[in-house]
């Protein structure tokens, strides 16, 4: 049953329009002048001059974590592709040269055009190999094929872009903890 909402009664001044238009112009001009002389106080972001700050836990483009020696941390268990509701992950497994690892992906492909950025893949990963914390949200390419990102693309990130306390990222080559991790792994 519909509910009747009474319209607010307007005063005489409001009914006359002009004073209200002047009031509105005052606000507009205020903002205009503020933007002209003190733009830093504006509540909006000056994109693209000012880059947006995206939180780490925002589900952005994926990355694959790296071991101390730069190999993918992924063990090709295909949990992510199983969990993926959009069916956008394709993995082909192969033998790893390192005895202690056994299995690694020889092909790992995410079709970003199909991806719904739900984050289930990162959730499903038993070894913390796939993360969506790159903060890359502007995805652009000139063909559909280029949206299919592979191992190389997913692993092309630098530890310096990630916080120092993200130990997992810092163990990758170039990271703060890389030397220590390599020693622990017994790789030079």
């Amino acid at each position, binding site marked *: 049953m519909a509910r009747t909402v009474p319209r607010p009664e307007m005063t005489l001044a409001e009914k006359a329009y002009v004073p209200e238009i002047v009031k509105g112009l005052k606000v507009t001009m205020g903002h205009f002048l503020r933007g002209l002389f003190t733009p830093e106080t504006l509540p909006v972001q000056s994109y693209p001059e000012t880059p947006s700050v995206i939180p780490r836990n925002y589900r952005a483009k994926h990355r694959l974590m790296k071991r101390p020696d730069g190999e993918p*941390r992924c*063990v090709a268990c295909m949990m992510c592709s199983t969990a993926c509701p959009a069916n956008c992950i394709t993995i082909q497994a192969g033998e790893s040269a390192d005895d202690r*690892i056994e299995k690694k992906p020889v092909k790992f492909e995410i079709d970003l055009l199909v991806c719904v950025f739900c984050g289930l893949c990162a959730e499903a990963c*038993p*070894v*913390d*190999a796939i993360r969506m914390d790159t903060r890359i949200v502007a995805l652009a390419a000139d063909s559909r094929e280029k949206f299919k990102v592979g191992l190389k693309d997913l692993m092309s990130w630098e530890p310096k872009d990630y916080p120092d306390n993200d130990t997992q990222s810092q163990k990758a080559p170039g990271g703060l903890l890389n030397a220590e991790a390599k020693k622990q792994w017994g790789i030079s």
Partner: protein
Amino acid sequence: MATLTVTQNFGKGACDLGVYRSLGGYASLGPRLFDLSQFELIDLVSRSGLRGRGGAGFPTGMKWSFVPRNSGKPVYLVVNADEGEPGTFKDHVLMLEDPHRLIEGMLICGWALGVRTAYIYVRGEFLPAIEALNRALKQAYDAGILGENIQGTGYSLDIYVHRGAGAYICGEETALINSLEGYKGQPRLKPPFPAVSGAWASPTCVNNVETLMALPWILENGPAAYQALGTPKSGGTKVFSVSGDVKRPGVYEVPMGTPLMELLESKDLCQGIVGELKGVIPGGSSSPVLLAEEARKANLDYEALAALKTMLGSGAVIAFNTTRNAVGMLASLTRFYAHESCGQCTPCREGTGYADRILKSVVAGKGRDGDLEHMLDLAANFSYTTICPLAIADAWPIENFIGKFRPEFEKAVSANPGHASPRMDDDFRPGAFW
């Protein structure tokens, strides 16, 4: 001096056939045995109240009566001399001192069951005993006591010594049979029981050394005399191996029902405790431990010890004084059972090792609160769920040592400064290895 039925030849050089004979040995190899039918002999042993001396205490006469004699298959007698229970060493000494009595006992048992071939399964470490047995067997063969058509009776018996190779579990009769057959010594599923289908799927009687060595005396003096030596339900005498903190450890034969403290303190026997008695393990490492005050009340027979919730077992008495640490003792026991688990049943295979590792970490000063409960829970979980009683033999000491010496264990746990910290580190991530 009480009547001795098994150890009377100790220290008299009875290894030699001539000496043994001069001490009245092999006297049963005459009308005393050969005039008895198999049925009479089994009946006689039943009436003597003789019970298996290997640990379980099953009435020997009843065990023999289960062996079918007309199944068309040969009947085997296997002597269980795989004495492995920590604290037990009586069979070792018995075989070294008086091997001919064992052979005579085997002849009596063989006669009762119609055995053609008998094996003595001796644990591998006892090479001196094996050599003593082999020498005795050679003498017996040369004297016509063994072999075919023994003394013209038409009865034939061959005895072989089978050397084990270091596996405690082979003391379990079906594991022993497996080992004898050339398999790993892992216990078999029952039924069928060995009496019906044992070695090579034939009827098999597995008896302890001491059980068989009591037979010549029983045959000589009659079952009633043997029965009268002990209590109404546990006839005869029993050989005890006493070790630990006593003045004179060794092998002693006393009548069933003798008070435990008499064995430990009598001047003919162990001559007393070194230091102040803390506890006694009365029947081999697997039997529940008795505190000093319980030990003072205990009598050495199957029923009296069962009333104290422990058991006579193989008669291995281990006494320890107040300077001994219960945690270390239990650690040596759990390590033993983890080492000796045959690896067949899951609860025992994994559980004994698991409990051992917990206790090891406690001993190493890495204990955590809840470890004792964890161990007790594991012990409860792996007992009564396996084929053979090895897991139970581990569970009993765990339950009893922790139950009776709890303060010591708690002290060991709290030796770890971080004993109350949570179980897992916070930064733990499953699968962090990858």
